[in-house]
């Protein structure tokens, strides 16, 4: 659509941005949210579904309190990022795209985070942890578990 010779970037092309905001603020995009956006912007729901399933970033299901993203870049892979995942499996019982039964941890693969010199890395709720090993990962998980337990006791 054009207005005075300038392309107006209509609602439809801003839809990715909108979805990114929702995903960031609410942690995921529910079916209801997607349906209401569909009605608001007049974009068919099938197209929105196709959009959110194309891009890695979007979660369609709720995540645990701590989302652990393990970098799947080449440098991290060569430097044994698989050990990080093994530690998470041992300490929290989850594989990729699973959430632990206590609702604390969700494990996700993420594409190269661009911190290759510090491989292997993981990202936890936006903070990057570098040169992680099996032991360091397990320690981190236990530390967070303890913190959560402590908080629960206070309540």
């Amino acid at each position, binding site marked *: 659509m054009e207005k005075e010779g300038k392309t107006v970037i209509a609602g439809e092309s801003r839809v990715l941005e909108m979805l990114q905001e929702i995903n960031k603020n609410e942690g995921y995009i529910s079916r209801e949210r997607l349906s209401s956006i569909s009605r608001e912007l007049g974009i068919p729901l099938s197209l929105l579904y196709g959009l959110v399933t194309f891009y890695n970033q979007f979660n369609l299901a709720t995540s645990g309190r701590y989302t652990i993203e393990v970098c799947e870049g*080449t440098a991290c892979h060569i430097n044994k990022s698989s050990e990080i995942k093994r530690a998470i499996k041992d300490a929290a019982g989850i594989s990729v795209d699973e959430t632990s039964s206590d609702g604390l941890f969700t494990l996700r693969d*993420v594409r190269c985070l661009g911190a290759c010199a510090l491989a292997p890395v993981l990202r936890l709720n936006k903070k990057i942890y570098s040169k992680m090993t099996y032991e360091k990962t397990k320690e981190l998980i236990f530390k967070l578990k303890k913190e959560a337990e402590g908080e629960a006791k206070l309540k």
Partner: protein
Amino acid sequence: MKHIIRVCTCTGCQANGSLEVFEGLCRAVSGRKKECEGKGIEIEVKETGCTGLSETVPNVLVEPSGILYVNVNEDKAERIVDSVINNYVIDEMLFELDGKKYGKLTDVPFFALQERVLLARCGYTTPLSLSDYIESGGFEGLKAAVSMKQDEIIDILKRAKLRGRGGAGFLTGIKWRFLKNAKGNEKFLICNADEGDPGAFMDRSLLESDPFAVLEGMLIGAYATGATRSFIYIREEYPLAIDKVKTAIDILKENGYLGNNVLEKFSFDIEIRKGAGAFVCGEETALMNSVEGKRGQPRIKPPFPAERGIFGKPTNINNVKTYAFVPLILRNGPEWFLDKGNGKSSGGTLLICLTGKIRLNGVVEVKMGTALRKVIYDIGGGLKSGKRLKGVQTGGPSGGCIPEALIDTEIDYESMQELGSIIGSGGIICIDEDDSIIDLCIFFLDFLEKESCGQCTPCREGIIQMKDLIIKIKERKASEQDIAMLEKLAVYVRDNSLCGLGQTSPNVVLSSLKYFRDEFERRISGKPVFKINEKCTGCHLCFLKCPVKAINGSPKEIHEIIQEKCIGCGICYDVCKFQAIDKE
């Protein structure tokens, strides 16, 4: 006497605690303010862009002495401040390599052997300080450009032989000419910052360390082509880079470098768009679809973006580094740029990301045409823990493996292509004798299998089957015919895919088959597999006789054959006096 202590706060450095170092230094300085005043010393702690020596971060640079301290942590901050006040050098915190210590950053071979042009400001200016930028030559390029005609600017870029640094390597001057000549009342520029190659983070580094340079390049591009609006498409996995660029744009707007009246000559706006986690969106037509709010599926070309791009309007897409070179070329002239090149088809330097088993991981900048050997050994310090280099993987998932035997190759577009690889966005991953080429192939194909958009049959199905064939080979269930089929399939995918992702996806397979074929062939089912059994006395004879050092073990202990390295020659089997080796 004025001193500046600089700490990098880029993503990589922050991940290792550089923010804490920064704060520690600030506390230390303010704690000794009176003392400094008494001695007539002024110390400022400033953020800076990344020097690129990622191996030892957090790094701290002291000016004007130029001393570099490495592996700094919060606790060491006090000492550094003390050393500045009392004018001494802290030996233990200096950079050390092979027994030698280096005081000044400029003495460290890692830096001394580089040709830092794009990275010139990194380590010496505050990324978001407009005054630092201008003082170091910022906007001289833009000012020179607006005094010229559009065709003059484009001509300069063509003479400078600036090739796109995103991977395709197309001549930027020609691309800009297409856009300038395109018919249309509205033209767009796009800066491709969707650096998806695993193992490449120099775009991130540049955006976080010297964002104004990239923006100035885009401004010159807008003036030269007539574009009035633009997007920077940054991966959402780079939140700090997004933040820095956003602030940089705001600063430029406030100071009249963006908006309706830039230098009273033209109007230009820049908007940020975030990637949403799709490697294929680094491909320019897929990127355009993503900006339009659609699935990031590549489009057929023609029509080319300069003819019909985003929202149907003429568009030009360039990589971050390409834009960053432009102000330097306008400022220093095309001959200066050619001089930094290889004298063939490409001017300028190359920004490389060194990762993998190399001792000094990081971002380096060298003249185009520098030999791989120099980059890996002289600058990068060789391999970790003294292992032997097996080869390097260049260009990310779209590139290939180059064996150690060809390490004297000069890095430029032609030579890489001749070898069956590409420069790509500049990532170089070093692999050592313990790394399996087959596993590397599987790793990249696994990545591409998920990142492919899936539209076209050769890429979608071809990558799945290439990977399955290689797994079959790895599991020793494959035949000669399977290897031949793998090669045939790889050529098919290269020649039939719709977009660059598919077309380059077989590079890693084809180059591995070319240079490391024995790793595939010795796994053909039916070929003997050798294993050491419990009869082994640890006589160590096989260890000594093995031509590829594929046997582990200390004398008097049971030895073990490393299957990954074994070439199946059978020498160990022949020399063993104890029937301790089984042949299957």
